[in-house]
């Protein structure tokens, strides 16, 4: 055995508001990995950090904006996307990323997602999907798998969930991907591709929430969920997205990949000249 390794610095230290640490996330949460991955993608994208802006809504993922040392906005529940639209349209120089959770973006903010994608607004949208409302203590949300147990589905979830990549793709998003926080290199590459594109870009990132979801649904701790991803995930960019549902069962597959990369006219308000 070698001795202990002391890390003096991390390549994205300057992108973290160290004076805000420790963060509020639970042990085993996937948000730290996702945030670090995005931070390094911001740096590696080569875009000036002063022009990169992160907007979040409410929830555990909503706190991501607050830990990143760029211009960052922690808005109201569900409204990150329209807030980001205002920023982007009023200053087209900005590279605006919306970083929020599944409940924030697809339940209370679902309508905004729908219309922003339809318009093809120039936004980079990252959704951390942990299958539940974590911050309020593990209630079911719009991506909770059928039958799953949460504090508000003690008898099992009766509602079919959204298949986010299928939703985004059907709305015309120009870039659509799904990865997990285990597939961090692929996620990093995918984020770079998204940052390099214009239009409405969407990346779903599956992340463990052992406290709110994993433990009560036969998956276990954070590390167990990472093993689960390793066993159950397959990478297939050509998959039929309509079939790419997520059941989070030990006998079901999760399809990952960069699924959509198309070009479509980017939203410009009526009457606008470039």
């Amino acid at each position, binding site marked *: 055995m070698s001795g202990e390794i002391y890390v003096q610095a991390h390549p994205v230290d300057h992108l973290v508001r160290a004076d805000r640490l420790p963060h509020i996330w639970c042990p085993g949460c996937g948000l730290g990995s996702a945030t670090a991955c995005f931070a390094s993608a911001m740096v590696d994208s080569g875009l000036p950090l002063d022009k990169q802006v992160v907007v979040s809504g409410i929830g555990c993922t909503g706190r991501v*904006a607050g830990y990143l040392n760029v211009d*960052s906005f922690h808005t109201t529940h569900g409204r990150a996307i329209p807030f980001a639209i205002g920023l982007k349209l009023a200053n087209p120089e900005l590279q605006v990323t919306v970083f929020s959770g599944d409940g924030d973006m697809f339940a209370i903010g679902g309508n905004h997602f729908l219309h922003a994608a339809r318009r093809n607004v120039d936004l980079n949208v990252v959704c951390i999907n942990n299958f539940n409302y974590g911050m309020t203590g593990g209630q079911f949300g719009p991506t909770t798998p059928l039958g799953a147990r949460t504090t508000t589905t003690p008898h099992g979830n009766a509602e079919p969930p959204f298949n986010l990549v299928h939703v985004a793709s059907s709305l015309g998003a120009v870039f659509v991907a799904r990865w997990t926080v285990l597939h961090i290199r692929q996620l990093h590459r995918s984020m770079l591709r998204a940052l390099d594109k214009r239009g409405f870009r969407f990346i779903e990132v599956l992340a463990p929430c052992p406290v709110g979801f994993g433990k009560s649904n036969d998956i276990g701790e954070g590390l167990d969920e990472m093993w689960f991803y390793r066993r159950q995930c397959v990478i297939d960019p050509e998959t039929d997205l309509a079939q790419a549902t997520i059941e989070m069962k030990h006998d079901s597959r999760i399809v990952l990949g960069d699924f959509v990369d198309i070009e479509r006219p980017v939203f410009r308000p009526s009457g606008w000249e470039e």
Partner: protein
Amino acid sequence: MIAAAERRVLAGRHFMNGDTACAEGALAAGCRFFAGYPITPSTEIAERLAERLPRLGGCFVQMEDELGSMAAILGASWAGAKAMTATSGPGFTLMMENFGLGLMTETPCVIVNVQRGGPSTGLPTLVGQADVMQAKWGSHGDYEPIAYAPASPQEMFDLLIAAFNAAERYRMPVLVMADEVVGHMTEGVTIPPAEELHLVGRKRPPAGANGWLPYAADGDLVPPMPLAGEGHHIHVTGLTHDERGYPATDAVVQDQLVRRISQKVQVHAAEIISLEELLTHDAETIVVSYGCTARSARQAVLAARERGVKAGLLRLITLWPFPGERMRELADGSRRFVVAEMNLGQMAREVERHTRAPAVWVTHAGGAMIPPTAILRAIMEAAT
């Protein structure tokens, strides 16, 4: 590209609809971003701006709802634009969520509410004035709003400039509480030349400043405002926050912050409050009114004078902050107050609270203007 022929300020004398004058006031004030959702009776504001804003290099965007509209103008404001939205009752209710975010994050913008009859869908095409307390208390938590009440198309123009100036000066969302009658009536409007307009821009961090704290207030309790994209790496949150903008789950920080965002309006009340007084100097009966109802009140006061009754009008051009001090001055114990408004006594209670005496209420739930005769009757009753 800005069309060369397009003038930002349509200086001159016009015969102009109130909603149109509102849009022109916004443009003259330097509004560069509008996000909204169509709703009667405010729609003409959006229509005018959809036509004019893009030609002036601005941005008009019709959002999916009023929640998104309000969020978008806050975002635009942080990108440096003077931004606004316009709506009516039901939309105003939806905007209360992010009105609160705007207050908490100290984001300049203007919200126009062309009031119609409520609650709920109420009377979409007919006048109301029953959102004035919603302006004061409609978003959760404590705050001190600034709200204007135009009584003519001319004031739809003038008060939009005042509202943008106040929003920028005090770094907050400012309300214009218009009504359907004022929005839809057409009357003479004089637009001054651009160089005669007094426009205020937001207080900014000193040039070259780096890492400016977005919530470090100056002596006037208003913090200079850094923008996104300037390199300050600001953090802005609706959570209770410290001077850095960082969340603080802390009773002391909460009390300091919420007191400051209220006090920044209270300490400047004298320069914000705008009143029109007609014949109040010797009045024995003072009618308090605002918006379209104040037009009836003016006529009633003049009619009472013709009958030898010493009546006066105190018209609230700003509803909030409330002119409590002036009310207390006027309430010398012998004067009587009549409050005329198109709701069931929202501001009447406020008048009574400050004059410490019961007022005569002339109220109506909306749908038609209160006629001068109803107010005259109240003046005559109060005088006997």
